[in-house]
C-alpha cells in the first residue's frame, strides 16, 4: 500500500509545488514569432501592433500574464521599484489630456500622461495605432524613475501584426485572421 500511495502523494506534492512556484516568465509574450504572441493578437483582432517583451533589463522580472477576448495584460517589476508596471493591449483607448511624445514606431502615436511628479513619478504611456492601443501604467519613486522609464521602453516593444501573420503562416500553417 505504501508503495502505491506514496508515489501518488509525492506526485501531488510535486505538481502542487511546481505550480505554486511556476515561473511566470514561461508565459511571457516575447518579441518573436509564435503562438504566445499569436494569442495576444487574437485578443484584439485587427490591432496593428502587439506589445511584447524584447529583453528583460537586469533587475526586471515578468510577473503575470492574462489574455482573453477583451485584450491582453501583463506586468513587469523592477527590483528598484516597489510597484509593478502594468501593460495592457486593448481595442481602443481615450488618451484625454495626455501629451504626444516621440512615436515608438511607424504608424504609432505615443502619448504621455503624468499624474504626479512630486513624491512619486506616476502616470501612463499610450501607444495608439490602427484598431488598438497599448497602455503602460507606471508608478515609480522619484530618483530612479528616469532610468526605469527608459528600461521599460527598452523591455516592451511593439511587434507588427502583419509580420506575425506571415511568420505564423510560414512556420505553423496558422492563418491569423484578420
Amino acid at each position, binding site marked *: 500500500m505504501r508503495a502505491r500511495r506514496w508515489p501518488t502523494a509525492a506526485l501531488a506534492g510535486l505538481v502542487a509545488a511546481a505550480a505554486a512556484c511556476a515561473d511566470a516568465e*514561461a508565459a511571457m509574450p516575447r518579441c518573436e514569432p509564435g*503562438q504566445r504572441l499569436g494569442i495576444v493578437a487574437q485578443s484584439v483582432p485587427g490591432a496593428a501592433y502587439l506589445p511584447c517583451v524584447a529583453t528583460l533589463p537586469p533587475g526586471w522580472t515578468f510577473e503575470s500574464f492574462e489574455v482573453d477576448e477583451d485584450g491582453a495584460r501583463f506586468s513587469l517589476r523592477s527590483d528598484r521599484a516597489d510597484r509593478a508596471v502594468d501593460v495592457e493591449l486593448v481595442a481602443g483607448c481615450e488618451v484625454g489630456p495626455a501629451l504626444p511624445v516621440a512615436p515608438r514606431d511607424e504608424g504609432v502615436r505615443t502619448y504621455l500622461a503624468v499624474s504626479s511628479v512630486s513624491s512619486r513619478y506616476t502616470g501612463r504611456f499610450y501607444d495608439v495605432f490602427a484598431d488598438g492601443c497599448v497602455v503602460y501604467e507606471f508608478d515609480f519613486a522619484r530618483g530612479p524613475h528616469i532610468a526605469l522609464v527608459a528600461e521599460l521602453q527598452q523591455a516592451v516593444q511593439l511587434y507588427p501584426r502583419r509580420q506575425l501573420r506571415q511568420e505564423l503562416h510560414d512556420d505553423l500553417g496558422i492563418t491569423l485572421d484578420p
Partner: protein
Amino acid sequence: MTLDRAADHTAPLPRRRPSGEPPPLPRPVSPGSRLSLLACALVALVWVALATQVGTRAVTAADVAVLDALGRLRNDTVADLARHVADLGSLWTFRIVAWTTLLVLIAVRRFQHLLVVLAVLLVVPLTNELVSVWLGRMRPTGVTIAGPWDGYAHPSIPVANLAVALTAVVLTLAPPGRWRRRAVWVAVVAVGLVAAARLVLAVDHPSDVAAALVTGAAVPVLAFRLVTPEEAFPVTYRRGVRAHLDVGGRRGEAICSALATQAGIAVTSVEPFRLGSSAGSTPLRLTTDDGRDDRDGDHRAAGGPDRHLFGKLYASTHLWSDRWYKLARTVRYGRLEDERPFNTVRRLVQYEDHMLRVFHDAGLPSPEPYGIVEITPDREYLVLTEFLTGARHITECGDIGDDVIDGALAAVRRMWDTGLAHRDIKPGNVLECDGRVLLIDVAFAELRPTPWRQAVDLANMMLTLGLCSTPERVYERALALFTPGEIGEAFAATRGVTVPSQLRSLLRADGRDLPARFRALAPPAPPVAIQRWSLRRAALTLSVAAGAVLVVVLVAVNLRLAGLA
C-alpha cells in the same frame, strides 16, 4: 487438534498455484482502466506533437477541418444556445461541485476518498495550467470565435475542470450499481454538452477538448482505481465500521476457492460474524462442507459436530488504519512499545498467525491457528483459526463464577510467565465457553513486552472481570495469583490510553468507577508515567507538525491556483 485431510477422501486437496495462473481474486485491470491508460498515452503524444512545428501544423490542420464543418452548422440561434450551455463550464460550477464533494466526504468520514479527491482536484487543474503555459497554444484560427475565452487554448481548462469535478462525484459519492450508472450518464451528458458548445462556438480546438476530457476524466479514474479501489474502499452509506469488506460476489467465491486450493477445505458459506467487535478486519464464519468434519474442536457446542471455521479477512485498507493509529500513538504518548507500522498486508497477517501459534504453544487458552490463505497477493489475506462454537463475550454471561474469574486471571499469569502481552484485553476479546475463558484477537500481542504493558494487561483483565462481578471479588481471586504489590502496580500504570476504547465505554456505562475501587483495594503505588520523551519522538512530532503546516500551506496556495478559491 489438527486438520486431518488424509482421513477425508471427499475433501479437496491443496495444490500449488502454477506460475501464470491468476490468484483467487486477481486485481482486475478493467477495460475502463486500459482505455484510460491508452487515452493518457495518446494525449502525451499530442502534447509532444504540439511542442514541435511539424506536429502543430498537423494537429492544427485536423482541428481546423473539424471546426470548419461545425462552423457550417452554426447560426445565431445555435450560437446563443451554445453560449448558454458553455456557461455550465464556468469556474463557479467547478467550485460548487468540487467543494460540495469535499464537504460530503468529510461529513460521511470517508477520508481516503477525501484525500484522493483533494489531490485530483489540485493536481489535474494545476497540471493543465502548467501544460497550457508550456504549450502556449492560440485559440482556433481561420474561423470566427463566437464565445468568451481566456488564457491559452490547450487543454480546454473549463472542460477539464468540469470533467474532473464530476468524475470525482461519480467515483466517490455514487454507490456502484444503478446510482453510479445514472451519475455517469448525467456527468457524460453535462461534460459532453459543454464540450460540444465550446466547439460550436470555435472557442477550443477539438484536440483541446479531447485532451481536457482525458486529463479531467481518465486521470481521476486511474487515480481512484490505483489508490482507492472499490474492492478495498467501497462507496457505501451503510452505517458500520468501514474496515469491513463485502464478502459476497467475487470476493466470496474467491475465498471459497482459495480455501479449497490452499487449505484443502471445502467451504459452503462465508458470512460476516460479530462485525461490531472488530474494527480492524472483517471477521468471518466459514461453514465447511456437510460431509466433512475434520476438526475435533475442544470448544464446539455439545451435541453437534463443529462445522465452522473462523477467518479474519485483512486488506490493504487495514494498513492505512494501522499506520495512522501507530503514528498518532507515538506522537501523543511516545514510543511506549513497538509502534512500527506494517508495510504490507502479508506481513500483518504473518505476524498475527505467528502470535496465534506462540499463544497456542505457550498453552494459553486461544483459538488454534490454521494458517493463512491468500486471496489477492499482497493485498488480501485470510487468517484462519478454529471457530469457538458456543463462546460468548464475557460481559454477555451475566454474573460470572469464580472459575471464570480464575481462568481469566490465570491466562494473564501465564502470559507473564511466558513473556507475552496481549495488549488489547477488553470484553470483546475475552470469551467464555462452557466455564472456560478464551483469549482472542492477538494481532497486537507482543513478545517480551515492557513490564508496564504486562501490568496494564492485568489491570484491563481485572476491569473486564469487574464489569461482570464485584471489584472486591475479583481482587480477592487475583491475590491467589498476583501479589498485592503487582496489582497495585497494574492500576498505577492504567489510565486513558492504556484502556481499550470498548472497555472504557463499558466502564463509563457501568458507573461504579471500577479503576478507583480497585486502586482503593490495592496497596498504593506511585503512578507509572505513560509519556516517553525521546529525541526521536520530539523529531517525529516536529516533522508531523511541519508536514501538516506544509500541506495546509500548499493546499491553500494551490486551491487558488487550481481555481477552487
